[in-house]
């Protein structure tokens, strides 16, 4: 960092933010119970954003250009990169904004085995947790990938910011398979900030159970409108619509017309949504201190969020970019109660999509349970094509909870009268 600061000064650059980090990983790749490949990684990078100011017709302007540089680069190479970025910035002028208010603080350390022990050891333990679940009859783990990432981050700015922190994450994905009566598979991913072996074992056990049901699922879904239950990560993705629509970079250009204090859910007969943005790291990449913030309270927008520039433009406090939120609705119906009513519980899709611009959500169904007369029938095929702008008028959240790295909240959400394309007529 000191070398970068010195060379930025030498290049005549007075306004800058530098986000530097080191990343150390251990990675394991499995095919069934065999080790395919193993990998390790050590990298260090610096994302340097240089700012330039100008004035046009009496109005102050600000431009920014970012460039990624490496410690291995020579002084001449670094100077060349900084000067090039600064030169380019003169052509990218935007309305003026202040850089983030500076914070100086000691390093925020992370604790726990994921941070403290060797990443190779953690990767082995998470792999063991995964394979521990692989003892279900009629289904098995087809393949898996485990990544353990230990990261040290450091932000400095020309305004005097100097903060650093340690973070660690384990993430990965796996595929479960069942061969009878149909040969089928299902994909799951996972991510934790702690060495959460129990959660991974439980998730894998559930996935093995689902894939067994997918193997006997039938293509009998008829086209029509259904009350649809979404669960776990599909709830998270559906609610992320509100995170996107409240973001400063959506509001500033007018893509979102929402403002703080708006009742964004409109008239409802169902539950009113309450969401909180959760800080996963102590600072953003711009050095902005991050804390938990209310986003929606009973369907009313309480804050906007995002990078320094767009928050400044809106006259809002810069918050940094969030990767996690919680849905604080306690729910009004247990998941077991939800399953007693006629509906379609869509468990997994080929790829669930939530379009924050249009409000449309959906995807091709890999496994769903058609619930009629209290009977659950596994079905596959067909697709869901709904609109959250319509569905939000009558929502029901489950009292059962679910948590992962990017979400904490109700396990299930019931959406009324959603269009479903069935498999009528398919061979």
């Amino acid at each position, binding site marked *: 960092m000191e070398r970068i600061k010195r060379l930025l000064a030498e290049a005549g650059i007075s306004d800058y933010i530098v986000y530097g980090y080191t990343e150390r990983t251990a*990675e394991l790749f499995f*095919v069934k*119970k*065999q*080790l*395919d*490949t*193993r*990998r*390790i*990684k*050590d*990298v260090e*990078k610096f994302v340097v954003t240089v700012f330039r100011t100008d004035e046009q017709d009496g109005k102050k302007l600000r*431009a920014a*250009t970012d*460039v*990624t540089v*490496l*410690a*291995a680069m020579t002084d001449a190479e670094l100077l060349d990169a900084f000067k090039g970025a600064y030169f*380019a910035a003169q*052509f990218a002028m*935007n*309305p003026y904004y202040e850089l983030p208010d500076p914070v100086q603080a000691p390093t925020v350390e992370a604790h726990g085995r994921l941070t403290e022990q060797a990443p*190779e*050891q953690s990767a*082995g333990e998470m*792999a*063991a947790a995964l*394979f*521990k679940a692989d003892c279900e009859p009629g289904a098995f783990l*087809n393949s898996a990938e485990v990544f353990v990432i230990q990261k040290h981050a450091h932000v400095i700015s020309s305004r005097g910011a100097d903060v650093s922190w340690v973070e660690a994450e384990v993430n990965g994905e796996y*595929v479960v*398979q069942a061969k009878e009566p149909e040969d*089928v598979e299902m994909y799951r*991913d996972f991510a934790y900030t702690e060495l959460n072996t129990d959660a991974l074992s439980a998730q894998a056990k559930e996935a093995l159970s689902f894939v067994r049901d997918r193997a006997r699922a039938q293509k009998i879904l008829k*086209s029509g409108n259904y009350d649809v239950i979404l669960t776990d990560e599909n709830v998270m993705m559906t609610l992320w619509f509100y995170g996107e629509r409240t973001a400063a970079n959506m509001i*500033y*250009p*007018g*893509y979102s017309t929402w403002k703080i204090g708006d009742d964004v859910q409109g008239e409802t007969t169902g539950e009113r949504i309450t969401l909180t943005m959760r800080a996963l790291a102590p600072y953003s990449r711009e050095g902005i201190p991050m804390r938990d913030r209310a986003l929606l309270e009973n369907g009313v927008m309480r804050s906007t969020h995002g990078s320094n520039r767009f928050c400044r433009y809106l006259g809002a406090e810069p918050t940094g970019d969030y990767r996690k939120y919680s849905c604080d609705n306690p729910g009004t119906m247990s998941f077991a109660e939800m399953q007693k009513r006629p509906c379609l519980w869509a468990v997994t899709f*080929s*790829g669930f*999509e939530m379009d924050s*611009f*249009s409000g449309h959500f*959906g*995807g*091709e169904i*890999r496994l769903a349970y058609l619930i009629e007369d209290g009977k659950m029938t596994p079905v596959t*095929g*067909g*697709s869901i094509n709904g609109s959250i*702008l319509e569905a939000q008028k009558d929502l029901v959240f489950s009292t059962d909870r679910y948590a992962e790295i990017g979400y904490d909240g109700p396990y299930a959400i019931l959406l009324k009268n959603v269009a*479903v*394309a*069935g498999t009528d*007529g*398919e061979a």
Partner: protein
Amino acid sequence: MFERLDAVKPALQKLIAALRERYAYASVLATAERFRSWKVSKNGISLSASGLDGGDGYVIRVFDETGCAEYSINAFSEEMIPEIVKEMETRFAAERAALPEGISPMPTAIPDDSPAVLKKEAKYEIDPMELGDEAILALIGRIREKGLKADGILDIFCGVNYSAERKIFLSENRDLDESHMWTNAYVGAMGARGEELKNSYRGYSVLGGAELLREVENDVDHVTGALNDLLRSEPMIPGEYECVCDPDVTGMIVHEAFGHGVEMDMFVKDRAQAKQFIGEYVASPLVTMHDGSAVDECATWAFDDEGTLTGDTVIIDKGVLRRGMCDALSAMRLGVKPTGNGRRESYERKAYTRMTNTYFEGGDAAKEEMIASIPYGFLLEEPTSGMEDPKNWGIQCMVNIAREIKDGKLTGRVFSPIVLTGYVPDLLKSVSMMGGKVQLAGGGYCGKGYKEWVKVSDGGAYMKARIRLG
């Protein structure tokens, strides 16, 4: 280009020699990249030189008694060789020691390392860096201003991305060196219908430089027109219809619906139904599918990220599935020849079997003939996303625009958004007409599942098929 790699090459060869004293195989892939993106929209002007993760670095591959192991770094010098060798020994041993009980190494023969030497320079007419930031931002600014004059526009966004890259692959017997440049551009129009935002988008790509921008300037009318159609669109009535796919939608079907299913690392995992269909009809005889470097597009490289030379792989020949595409490790496990499809998101990531430029060959039908042949159906345009399902050959592709066809004519009614579903071979066997002009689009990135983004292109011609829409 990237002379720094020339300077470090002798030291990399010494690293390989040092590793060969301990390991049965050692190779290094060294990469250097220069990236730039320019964008204008209501959010202002943005200019970034950071690119995606990755950039300049090295991935070192060895084979030990547990199989393939890799180390990714972005700092290297001759002085660091002993430290790197020690780090690899220590941490690979730790990884091996921490493996769960009951896990065994996957038997994998060492990939072919027969001698090969190659040096290839990037081809382009105009280096975007020489054209300059000012000229590029002025051009996309003009395009935006022109588009904003159309009715019903909330925003016009326009951008250019460019990457110049050099890769060197070194092993005991291979010395491969290639530089490469691609440029992409895009123009999009956004409008609002109440709280619902609609957007239309068009992308452009070239294996080359800023010469691409000549074709972009006069095209903004297309996206503003399509946006106005979208603002009066209706929800799709689910059903199976006769459809005409435009070349972009054909490309998405090639790539998402079929291409992922013939990536042969999926054969190793028993995750691809295609494995059982080699030599069988999986498509109409009008369908011939290629992947590889026989065309000049963004994913054209002379060698892949494992040091395998690339070529033209015929996947489907007149409806018959001939073979898949394959990375080096999967090829050793399956006992087949690799096809040069071992690709990485960057030096920081593992190599998987990945598509490059994937497309259907053209036929002899005209788009107008296809539309005229349909009593009731749709013309599909603007693919937005897709998801693979190699195991069960299920289709999930999203399309922005379906234009209604009635009695062989477009009626002017537009439906949106559209989900394409069904069983891949059913769709491909239903192909009844194939257009003449093949167009490839290389503006996007392809993921393996939900990660591992690599630059690809895909395409084909206008194509008539029966497709389930929802």
